[in-house]
């Protein structure tokens, strides 16, 4: 049942969905934690079952961001989005599985790997894999609160055939989100249908004084779509993916974004990894998370804990990120990437002078098999984000909707809007879905 219908009818299927989640989890690994006793309450979202990506803090619920090093961490506070949702009566049914700290596009960098709902030998995409998978497979009314840094909402939405919305950076509070990269992280919403996203988005968005990067600006009211631009460079993919996307559009023009295509992934990763490498410094076995017996001196202890409990991918990213901001390299990498980001934002802004929304495929491929993923080099892995990094780097609102299928695997279409055009993006998505 659609969220809007569920709410208007005052339904309560929380117990049922929890039972389903428990069963599904045995095969699909969508949840790191299920709250058997979850209940809802009164409010605008009364008794709406909501799953939450593991990196978003829910008070007293283990929130380990898909990592081992944070195992056992039970936050003593709710993320702002969670307290706003609770106020409106949602039932938080559990924490969904993900790539550790958001590091990945296939949700394989974790101990609890979610499987694609349509083909269990394939990935759900990442890093919000558990959210994407469960949203697709559940027979009950449900939305998932997920998170995107470089495309972690759009990608699993595309691979699992559901709608995934990432708002303008700063529109939804990051307070309580376990950081990947502070200038790139955004909390968003996944649901089966686009029109199920807005009622939840309207509750979680808006200025939060606890998040100093939270925007005080209002969303734009204008939702009219006059001109549609398709990003030329993104059409360089499998014919079938291209056709699926273009078949959804009536009138459009091709627009070229050369900077995004050439330097987007690079600028994104340098910024993301630099910020991540400092964000992950706090995991050292002292105040929360995994720890070891206290022996040796503190430096040895920190190294022992971090080396034991961080995954290889985390270590790789920490090393890269530390390098990019070390004295001597900062200007060439970290600062340079920040300047390139500025140029990329300007490139988008120029395009938005002419077009209301920009379109591209969400991902350059359909959901890959796990066996294929393991053969990818780190660089090939990072290049998978080529479609999604652009809007994420520029902090633009973007939505992935299902555009069709290749065989049985879904193909995602991404709608990108200008800063604060969140409502326009959602409106358009509803139309073409």
């Amino acid at each position, binding site marked *: 049942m659609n969220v809007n219908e569920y709410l208007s009818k005052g339904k309560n299927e929380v117990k049922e969905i929890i039972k389903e989640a428990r069963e599904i989890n045995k095969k699909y690994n969508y949840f790191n934690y299920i709250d058997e006793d979850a209940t809802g309450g009164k409010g605008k979202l009364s008794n709406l079952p909501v799953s939450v990506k593991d990196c978003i803090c829910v008070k007293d619920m283990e929130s380990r961001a898909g990592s081992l090093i944070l195992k056992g961490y039970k936050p*003593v506070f709710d993320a702002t989005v969670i307290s706003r949702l609770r106020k409106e009566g949602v039932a938080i049914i559990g924490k969904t599985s993900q790539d550790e700290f958001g590091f990945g596009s296939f949700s394989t960098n974790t101990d609890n790997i979610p499987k694609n709902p349509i083909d269990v030998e394939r990935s759900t995409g990442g890093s919000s894999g558990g959210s994407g998978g469960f949203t697709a497979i559940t027979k009950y009314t449900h939305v998932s609160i997920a998170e995107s840094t470089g495309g972690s909402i759009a990608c699993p939405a595309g691979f699992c055939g559901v709608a995934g919305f990432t708002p303008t950076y700063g529109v939804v509070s990051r307070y309580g989100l376990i950081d990947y990269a502070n200038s790139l992280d955004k909390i968003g919403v996944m649901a089966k249908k686009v029109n199920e996203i807005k009622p939840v988005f309207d509750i979680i968005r808006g200025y939060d004084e606890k998040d100093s990067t939270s925007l005080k600006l209002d969303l734009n009211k204008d939702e009219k779509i006059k001109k549609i631009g398709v990003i030329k460079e993104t059409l360089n993919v499998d014919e079938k993916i291209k056709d699926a996307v273009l078949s959804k559009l009536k009138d459009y023009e091709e627009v070229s974004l050369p900077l995004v295509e050439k330097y987007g992934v690079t600028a994104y990763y340098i910024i993301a990894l630099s*910020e991540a490498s400092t964000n992950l410094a706090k995991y050292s076995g002292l105040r929360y998370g995994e720890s070891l017996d206290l022996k040796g001196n503190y430096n040895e202890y920190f190294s022992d804990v971090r080396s034991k409990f961080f995954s290889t991918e985390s270590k790789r990213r920490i090393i890269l990120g530390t390098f990019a901001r070390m004295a001597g390299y900062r200007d060439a990498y970290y600062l340079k990437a920040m300047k390139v980001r500025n140029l990329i934002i300007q490139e988008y802004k120029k395009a938005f002078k002419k077009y209301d929304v920009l379109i591209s495929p969400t991902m350059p491929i359909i959901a890959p098999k796990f066996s294929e993923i393991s053969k990818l080099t780190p660089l090939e892995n990072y290049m998978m984000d080529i479609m999604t990094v652009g809007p994420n780097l520029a902090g633009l609102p973007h939505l992935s909707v299902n555009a069709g299928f290749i065989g049985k695997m879904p193909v995602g279409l991404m709608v990108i809007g200008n800063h604060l055009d969140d409502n326009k993006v959602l409106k358009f998505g509803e139309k073409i879905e």
Partner: protein
Amino acid sequence: MKIGLEIHVELNSKSKIFCSCATQGSNVPNTRTCEICLGMPGSKPSFNREVLHKALKVALALNCKINKESFFSRKNYFYPDMSRNYQITQYELPLAENGKFEGINIRRIHMEEDPGALIHFGSITLIDYNRSGMPLIEIVTEPDFKTPKEARTFLNKLITLLEYLNVYVREEETTLKADANISLEGGERVEIKNVTGLREIERCLEYEAKRQEIELATFKETRGWDAEKGVTYSLRKKESENDYGYLTECDLPMLELSDTLLNEIKKEIPELPNQKIKNFIDKYKLNKDDAEVIASDLKLAELFEQISHKIDAKIAANYLRRDLLGQLEYNKLQVKDLKIGEHGVKDIGVMLNLYQKNKINNNILKTLTIRLIKEGKIGEIKEQVSDDSQLKKWCKEAIENNKSVVEDYKKGNENSLNFLVGYVMKLSNKSANPQKVREILKEMI
């Protein structure tokens, strides 16, 4: 000899720099903490406006150039007292630069947070994060000091200035710390880290200067100060040139300071110590020494200004310096412990008036001052006894009971008269007018 200081001052805002935990209160460990100053995953900092205002006041009072645009950075290093293993500080663009105070050039002033406190306990270390997130400003001077004494004098004046600005609480000297740099002619610079309090700062510099005189420093070094043993010691070399890998603090936006704000802050700066001293000399006609002593404490200076409405400035200054400060020291108290309200000020005026008119003597003054210190008011003033008949009675008694002393005086011993005066004072329970007593005794003898 060249000495430079990096001074850490704890500001007296009500809440911490990046969270709303109280800066004062419970000393029970980890009871003034929250998810932010504990660095819990998911928490984010939020910058205290009052800390900016206080830091700006200091920067303006030290004649610095304010950077209209500045931001916070993450200084990354691993240590158990660091709740996030990075400190939020200002690196590339500090709040203020290029100031001058008391002839010393100020290189820069920036804001940052304090880490937690460690207690070493055998093979483990205990951590209390109450202090984590306390607001600090760091004032870095150029190496302009030529002696350790100069450094201490500067710090005293700096503390007075900070008190005048109401940004700092002088509390057992635990809230001012410094890293001190010292080099001798031809030698390398040695840094002594983390010295607490003015006395220790001067001591460690004196020790290090002597140590370098014996053996000139041939390489740049960082040392610690052992206050108990009174020596500096080599700190185990930190791994490599600790690359802090500075990053902008991406959870906190840039600061853009307007002229309007700076003008508002300027208006909040009160008359500063140097100006007060000048005023005391020019307007109130005090001598330099009295002026400096009274201006060295804001509360004392304000008390002086209030009393001088009712009483001659010189008498007020004398009273404060000699009697009030004297009694405070004797009772092991400080000016900040005084609780003198409007009433108390009035009382002092009345008391000094009577003293000026010779209606009360020094002893009574002393008694009343003690009462003032202990109770914050003077209360009933019993004037000294100047009634001739009563005085003559006591003098007669003194003479009759001390015949030998009287003889001594007649022989020319002046001290004997003092003894007799003292005897009368005792008889009268210190309430006799000593000058009159002396005259009467002389007459009688």
